């Protein structure tokens, strides 16, 4: 926090834009969208203000997780080109402010969720924040190349929380949506890790391409893409969604697997531009948006 003006070395108060950047707003957009879809796909109607407040609580919880992640990883971020410009490694924010901001935001998000919805959703939100900060960021990420496989669970919580905020209970469809994001995370992140591999190696993070090599990573991308596709289509034959979602999931998943085959079966040399990997990474984001949009559309308009 700001010190007295009379002190010799006075720290500038943090700019609110840097505090906002600490919440990883781009990641938050996917969290908000999947949580909203989970809430809208639930078979009950929620008053709009309570729905809005629940989604806001999830967004703030995700922001708090991002802030605490950046506080803990400031040293690592400074070593990577992709993250060196973040407020903490760039020296625009002091760690104490970031820590207080993260804890305060987490506490407020839980309070808001409890006030606007129910204790079940609040409990799930608390678990997702603690899982992301303690299990993923502090424990798994610096230790094992399986970090994002298990850590992917943290990012899979939002649709489940959205559903529980609306209904107060867990059901098969949101669990399947949880599973979809969980299985989507490895091909998504490993595609990124393939083209920023040198960054992760420089920071000493044991991402799959750094530890197991490119060939093994590519094979595993393809493996996860195949089981993810099966998990994405499964709600349709199991009767939890209709044909609108079913056909959308089938077409999009075929495309996802086709891009993964391209990535999974190629070998690269020095100076490769990694275009197929970049394409898969970009498409994987659109894929999740389209599928979750289809879940809601299918709930509203059955064909």
């Amino acid at each position, binding site marked *: 926090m*700001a010190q007295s*003006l009379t002190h*010799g*070395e*006075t720290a*500038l*108060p*943090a*700019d*609110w834009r840097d505090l906002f950047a600490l919440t990883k707003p781009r990641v938050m957009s996917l969290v908000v969208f999947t949580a909203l879809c989970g809430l809208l796909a639930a078979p009950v109607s929620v*008053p709009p*203000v*309570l729905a*809005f*407040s629940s989604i*806001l609580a999830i967004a703030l919880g995700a922001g708090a997780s991002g802030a605490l992640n950046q506080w803990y990883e400031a040293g690592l971020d400074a070593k990577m080109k992709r993250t060196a410009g973040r407020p903490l490694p760039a020296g625009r924010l002091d760690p104490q402010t970031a820590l207080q901001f993260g804890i305060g935001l987490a506490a407020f998000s839980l309070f808001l969720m409890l*006030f*606007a919805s129910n204790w079940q959703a609040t409990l799930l939100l608390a678990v997702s924040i603690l899982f992301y900060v303690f299990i993923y960021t502090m424990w798994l990420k610096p230790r094992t190349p399986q970090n994002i496989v298990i850590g992917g669970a943290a990012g899979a919580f939002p649709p489940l929380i959205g559903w529980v905020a609306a209904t107060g209970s867990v059901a098969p469809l949101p669990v399947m949506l949880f599973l979809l994001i969980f299985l989507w995370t490895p091909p998504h992140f490993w595609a990124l890790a393939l083209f920023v591999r040198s960054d992760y190696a420089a920071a000493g993070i044991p991402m799959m391409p750094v530890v197991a090599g490119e060939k093994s990573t590519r094979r595993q991308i393809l493996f996860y893409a195949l089981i993810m596709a099966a998990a994405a289509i499964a709600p349709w034959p199991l009767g939890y969604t209709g044909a609108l979602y079913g056909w959308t999931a089938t077409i999009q998943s075929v495309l996802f697997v086709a891009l993964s085959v391209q990535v999974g079966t190629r070998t690269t040399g020095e100076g490769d531009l990694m275009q197929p990997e970049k394409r898969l990474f970009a498409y994987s984001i659109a894929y999740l948006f389209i599928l979750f949009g289809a879940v809601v559309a299918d709930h509203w308009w059955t064909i």
Partner: protein
Amino acid sequence: MTDEPKPAPFDEAEYRRRQRSRANMMAWMLGALAILFFFITIAKIQIFA
């Protein structure tokens, strides 16, 4: 030693600008939250009425 780096001069104008900008942001957020909590309460009353 004469080549020790000197601390950057204190920029009071920048200090005040950031303070003002944060105070404004905080005021807007508190105002928005007050309104949000009012409507959450109304919605809850209607549910349990």
